[in-house]
C-alpha cells in the first residue's frame, strides 16, 4: 500500500500520492450523487402525495349525494304534477318514485364497487299554484291585482316558496310604471313596509328587465337586471326563486353586486321556523301572458288564503319538501345522512 504523504516531503515529478486523492474525490462525488438522488426522489414522492387528493373517496360520496338530490327532486316535481288528488296519493307516488330511483341508482353504483341506498323518511305539506292554459296571469274573472296566496310560513332554516317560474309568451309592459309586479309582504304589514317586490317589463323585443325593491321597515333597496334571450326562443323563462332568466343569472333576483341579499322574499323579516307568515300578490297581471307555477309551504294545522284562485290559475295539494335517508358505502367509507330535498328553493 502506498504510504501517506510525509509532512514536509516535496512532491516528485511523478506525483506519488495522487492515487489517494482520486479515491477520496470519487468517494466525495459518490456521496454527492446519492444525496442528490435522495433529494430528487423525496421531491417526486411529495409531488405524488400532493396529486393524490383525498383517498377515502368522500368526493364520490358527496357528488353522488348531489345527484340523488336532483333525482329525488324530479320525483317530487312529477308527483306534484300528476298525483295530487290527495296527500296520501302524493306520498304513495313519491315513495314509489324514490324506491325505483334507489334501486336503479344502487345497481349502477354496485357496478363501480359502491353501495348507494335512498329511502323515504318524511315530507312537509304544501300547495302548488299553477297556470297551464297560456292565458294572461289574471284570475279567471280577469282581475289584474289580486292575492295569489296568503299565510305562507317559512320552514326552519329555509324559504317557504320554491320553484316559482314564469314562462311568459308575451310581456306587454315596457316601463316600470305599468310593469307586472310580484309582491311578497309580511302578513298585516302596511304600505310597502316589510316587502319584496319584483317588477317585470320589456326594454326591447328580446330583452326583459327585472327591478326588485326590498323594503325593510326603514329603507328601500332597488336592484335592476336585464337579460336578452337567445334568438329564436318564443318564451321568456323567468325563474324568480332560482334567480335566472332563460338560464342566465339575474343579480336582482339573487345576490346583488353590492353583496345585498335580494333573493325571493328578502326584507319581509319573516323568521324561518316561526309562526310569522307572508302573502304573495300580483299587480298588473294582464301585462304578462303565459304560464307559471310555484309551490308554497303550508304549516301543519293552518290553512292558506287561496280565495282568489279558481280554475286558471289553479291550486293543488303538493309536497313542499321530502326528507330521504342517503347511504353511501365503500370499502373505506361509510356515509349516511338525512337529506332534505326541496327543488328550486332559494336562500332565505
Amino acid at each position: 500500500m502506498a504510504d501517506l504523504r510525509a509532512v514536509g516531503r516535496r512532491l516528485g515529478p511523478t506525483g506519488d500520492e495522487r492515487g489517494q486523492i482520486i479515491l477520496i474525490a470519487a468517494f466525495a462525488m459518490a456521496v454527492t450523487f446519492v444525496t442528490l438522488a435522495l433529494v430528487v426522489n423525496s421531491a417526486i414522492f411529495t409531488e405524488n402525495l400532493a396529486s393524490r387528493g383525498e383517498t377515502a373517496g368522500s368526493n364520490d360520496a358527496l357528488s353522488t349525494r348531489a345527484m340523488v338530490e336532483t333525482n329525488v327532486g324530479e320525483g317530487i316535481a312529477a308527483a306534484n304534477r300528476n298525483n295530487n288528488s290527495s296527500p296520501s296519493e302524493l306520498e304513495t307516488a313519491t315513495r314509489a318514485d324514490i324506491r325505483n330511483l334507489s334501486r336503479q341508482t344502487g345497481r349502477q353504483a354496485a357496478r363501480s364497487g359502491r353501495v348507494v341506498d335512498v329511502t323515504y323518511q318524511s315530507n312537509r305539506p304544501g300547495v302548488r299554484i299553477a297556470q297551464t292554459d297560456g292565458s294572461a296571469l289574471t284570475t279567471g274573472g280577469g282581475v289584474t291585482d289580486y292575492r295569489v296566496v296568503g299565510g305562507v310560513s317559512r320552514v326552519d332554516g329555509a324559504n317557504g316558496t320554491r320553484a316559482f317560474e314564469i314562462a311568459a309568451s308575451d310581456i306587454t309592459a315596457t316601463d316600470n310604471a305599468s310593469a307586472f309586479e310580484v309582491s311578497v309582504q309580511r302578513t298585516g304589514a302596511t304600505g310597502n313596509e316589510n316587502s319584496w317586490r319584483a317588477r317585470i317589463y320589456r326594454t326591447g323585443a328580446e330583452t326583459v328587465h327585472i327591478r326588485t325593491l326590498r323594503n325593510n321597515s326603514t329603507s328601500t333597496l332597488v336592484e335592476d337586471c336585464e337579460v336578452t334571450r337567445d334568438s329564436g326562443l318564443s318564451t321568456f323563462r323567468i325563474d324568480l326563486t332560482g334567480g335566472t332568466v332563460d338560464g342566465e343569472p339575474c343579480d336582482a333576483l339573487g345576490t346583488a353586486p353590492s353583496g345585498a341579499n335580494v333573493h325571493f322574499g328578502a326584507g319581509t323579516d319573516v323568521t324561518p321556523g316561526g309562526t310569522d307568515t307572508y302573502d304573495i300578490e300580483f299587480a298588473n297581471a294582464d301585462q304578462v301572458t303565459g304560464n307559471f307555477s310555484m309551490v308554497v309551504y303550508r304549516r301543519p294545522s293552518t290553512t292558506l288564503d287561496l280565495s282568489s284562485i279558481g280554475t286558471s290559475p289553479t291550486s293543488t295539494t303538493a309536497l313542499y319538501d321530502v326528507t330521504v335517508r342517503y347511504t353511501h358505502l365503500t370499502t373505506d367509507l361509510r356515509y349516511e345522512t338525512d337529506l332534505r330535498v326541496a327543488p328550486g328553493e332559494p336562500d332565505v
Partner: protein
Amino acid sequence: MVTRERAQAHTLEAVVAGLLLLSSIIFALQMTAVTPLSASTSSQHIENQQRSVAQGVLATADSQGALKESVLYWNDTGGQFHGTSDIGYYTNDPPKTTFGAILRDAFDDRSISYNVYITYRKQGSGQARKPVIYRGRPSDNAVSAARSVTLMDDDPLIDADGSVNHSVNVSAASTYPAQNVGASVYNVVRVEVVAWRI
C-alpha cells in the same frame, strides 16, 4: 520497496474509485427513472386533471338541465339521436345541445378526445349501454366520470332545434332506447364521459 509498490496501489485505487463513481451514478439514475408523474401524455397529473374536468362538465350540464336535454335529444321517427348518421351515434361533432357545447368547449380545444355512453336498466333484468358520442377506442390512460339522470314518464323529447317537443313524451316514444321500468319514473340513465389525451 516503497517506490515499486506504488504503481499497483495507484491502479487499484483508480479502479475502486471508478467502480464507486459508476455505482453511485447508476443508483442516482435508477432513483430518478420514469415515474407515473414524469411529464408525458399518461402523467397522473393530467389524468387527475381530465377526470376533474369531466366531472365538472357533467355537474355543470346537470345543474342547467342540459344533461337531461341531451339524453332526450331523440328523433323518434328515425330511431336515432338528431343529426347522427345511420350508425346511430355522433362521431365528429357533439350533438347541437347545451351539453354538446359544454363538451366542445371543455375538451375539443385541448386535444382531448372523448366518448359519451348512456347506461340504463332493461325491462326484465340487466343493463344496456349505448354510445352517444364515439370517437374510437380510448387509450390505456383514459379517465371516466359519470352522473345519473332520472327520466319521468311525462318528460318530453327534444326537437332537432333544441325546443321541447310537446306532442311526444318519453313514455309515448316508440323507438327510444331506454325502456319504461317504473310507475312514474321512466328510467334512470347513467351518462358516462370517457376522456383521453391524443
